[in-house]
């Protein structure tokens, strides 16, 4: 087990290094000069040269990368070009909102997807199955920017049940925290849930067609017991995989939904960093997103091992 873990963590570090190189190169290849953006339309050569020198942007690309990497290894991701704040703290202060929304959305997704997917598989080919499939198709096709705006118009403007935007910390007011969370979580959760539903359905359906299920039926077990004891344990791995992928994607911040609901998450931070060509901030944010994704992947792999000991051998 510890050997498996060590191997996976080493792989993860190599992947992070790769991500940092690719991101660093890509950012510098994109047209648009951060100093020029900071100066806006008021261009002045002396000021431009001074700012470039101060931020180290006048140095060769390779030198910039290794200087950054050296600091990053000690946990220092540098200072934001635009406001001279440490990138680490800018990213960290966005984490509570990002993690809250990611887990709330995943919660909505699972609550919708598990029952819907199981029912759909059990009633395969029946009207209920078609209804679930149609609903999940709608969910997948519905753009988040449209759904979010509709929820705001209905629940915030017309019915006045929930606030339209913003984020309140749980410590400040748990009730307000929840009220602000509902609409963005549902907007993303229903889309994510639609994706997961399809995986749950196909995983359960496959397990239902196995011989041991026929045996269980022959033994006269109740349908619910068959699903609980024989089908779900075998359907679990593909479901965990897709849930893990969805969570990794949610933890990276959700630009569109964060903009619509004025949610102070990582997505908006990264978006601002792109617009301002704030290289250090963007680099830090992307590195964090990659780190989260890889960590969740690692956790998913560990869960595999728990669910199915065969994984450890292979």
């Amino acid at each position, binding site marked *: 087990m510890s050997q498996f873990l060590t191997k996976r963590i080493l792989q993860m570090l190599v992947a992070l290094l790769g991500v940092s190189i690719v991101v660093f190169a890509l950012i510098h290849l*994109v*047209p*648009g*000069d951060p100093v*020029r*953006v*900071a*100066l*806006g*339309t*008021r*261009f*002045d050569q002396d*000021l431009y040269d*001074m700012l470039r020198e101060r931020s180290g942007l006048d140095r060769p690309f390779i030198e910039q990368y290794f200087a950054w990497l050296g600091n990053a290894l000690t946990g220092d991701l540098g200072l934001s070009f*635009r*406001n*001279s*704040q440490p990138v680490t703290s800018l990213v960290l202060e*966005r984490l*509570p909102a990002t993690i809250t929304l990611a887990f709330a959305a995943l919660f909505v997704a*699972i*609550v919708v997807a*598990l029952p819907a997917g199981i029912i759909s598989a059990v009633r395969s080919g029946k009207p209920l199955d078609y209804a679930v499939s149609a609903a999940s198709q709608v969910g997948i096709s519905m753009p988040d920017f449209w759904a979010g*705006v509709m929820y*705001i*118009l209905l629940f*915030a*403007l017309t019915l*006045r*049940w929930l*606030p*339209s*935007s*913003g*984020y*309140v*910390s749980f410590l400040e007011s*748990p*009730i307000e925290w*929840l*009220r602000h969370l*509902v609409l963005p979580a549902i907007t993303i959760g229903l889309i994510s849930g639609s994706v997961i539903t399809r995986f749950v359905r196909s995983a359960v359906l496959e397990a239902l067609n196995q011989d041991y299920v026929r045996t269980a039926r022959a033994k006269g077990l109740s349908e619910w017991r068959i699903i*609980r*004891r024989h089908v*779900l*344990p075998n359907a679990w791995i593909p479901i965990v995989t897709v849930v893990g992928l969805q969570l990794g994607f949610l933890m990276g911040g959700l630009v569109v939904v964060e*903009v*619509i*609901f*004025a949610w*102070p998450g990582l997505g*908006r931070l990264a978006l*601002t960093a792109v*617009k*301002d*060509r704030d290289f250090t901030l963007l680099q830090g944010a992307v590195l964090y997103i990659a780190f989260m994704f890889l960590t969740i992947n690692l956790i998913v792999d560990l869960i595999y091992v*728990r*669910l*199915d000991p065969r994984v450890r051998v292979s």
Partner: protein
Amino acid sequence: MTRSAIRPKWVLMLLAIALVAAACGDDDAETTTTAAAAGTTTVTTAGDDGDTATTAAPATTAAAAEPMVLVAAQGSEPDTLDPHLTSAYASFQVLENVYDTLVQPGDDLSMEPALAESWTISADNLTWTFVLRQGVKFHNGREFVADDVVFSFERIIAEGLNGWRFGSVESVTAVDDYTVDVTLTVPSPNLLVSVAGFKGMAIVAKETVEDGTIATNPVGTGPFRFVSQSPDGGIVLEANSDFWRAGEGLPILDGIRFVQIPDAGTKLTALRTGEVDWIDAVPPQDVDGLSSEAGITVGRVPGGDYHYFALNQNRPPFNDVRVRRAIATAINRTEIAEAAQFGAATANQTAIPASNGSWHLDYAPYQSADIAGAQALLDDAGVADLSIDFLVTSDFPETVTQAQVIAAQLAPLGITVNIVDVDFGTWLDMEGNGEFDAFMLSWIGNIDPDDFYYAQHHTGEWANFQGYSNPDVDALLDAARVETDSAARKALYDQAAAMIVDDASYIYLYNPDNINAWSDAVGGYATRGDNAIRFVGTFLQP
């Protein structure tokens, strides 16, 4: 197998618990909403009853104990709170209420006293002496003195984005604690606008620069004191009880909370539901609808910003003035303003709007949508099958709309417009490198004519990306810069402006309106011609 069978059960149980918890939470939330709504209704009624008694009345209601905090929604996020290093309008919306300048634009945009109570100009027009207000305190309790002015100005000159505004300043010296001399190399009639036209020229406290806190914890002398900034709470300001206008009862609000709502639709909804009291801009297409809504006031003032496009005079055939004039007369400015701003703008063939009474020039030599006239000019120049690479940026979406309208308006002349739509970072690169046949943008926040014309149209100046050069215009702009007689100065600028329009150095389009909106509970606020957001006299009615 048994172990893996346990896990799903455990997960399902957790989900069930969470579901119940969420359901309870939702119930609570609804109760709270209802209670809050009912509470608001009661308070409003009480307020209406006691309206005639004005300030005395609220003391009897429970609501009077609540601090009067305005919630202001901004469409974008401040990048840094250092007034000398930011160029973001969102930052200035906040800093306008935290910092002061030596003097400041009044309601009619003429300069009025602020930290300086008065000023005198020497006989040779080369020394301006400012007499400072005494007893003014920074938010950290330290008294404001002449050294702070010297320090702030020297910092702006050395590293600020606005150092260029001190182009004619030779030195800034503190004569004593309450007197500052500004000496010039040439007479500069626009000095007040240059050194105090907006909060980028703020007087800051030296200690906050030295300890590096200025970017996150601004300390000024203004009506509101900075308290905190966080992703969830926004930017919180509280009333400065030691404000130098405290004697007049200012500021009235107990505090301001700036929240950032990037989506324009959500921002409008937040105003409609009462989650926020004030919003910084209204999409032009929503202005009419919003104006007629009960409970909301829309403030709309002709602004000093102007939208324009320019043809690259370093590239043929745009170096031929006939080609530029042809395009200037073929377009229909009213139609462009209607498409881009839904009519919340005034078409203008020059830069300075009528609302800037002192410097406006009423000059419109071009016929609108004169296709025949334009064709004649093109024929005369021997130009046919013209193609224009038109540089725009979707970060300022109106430039894209305008280019599309212009493309349609030029089509009858056989002109092909290729719209090059890039992000603003790339746009600035391409503009700087001259990679365009035409580019389009707007200039914002100008008051003095020197800011409208010099950098843009003087030969070789830094903002003259279109490559315009006319020795007569250069001579006029140079002379007007140092002309201290206002009438003579205006005459010089009028001549220069007419030449710039005739030569189509810029093809001016329109001046957009400045638009804010606020709930009817907000009083003592007005949208300004210079787009400064001042809450010093603002209050909230119960």
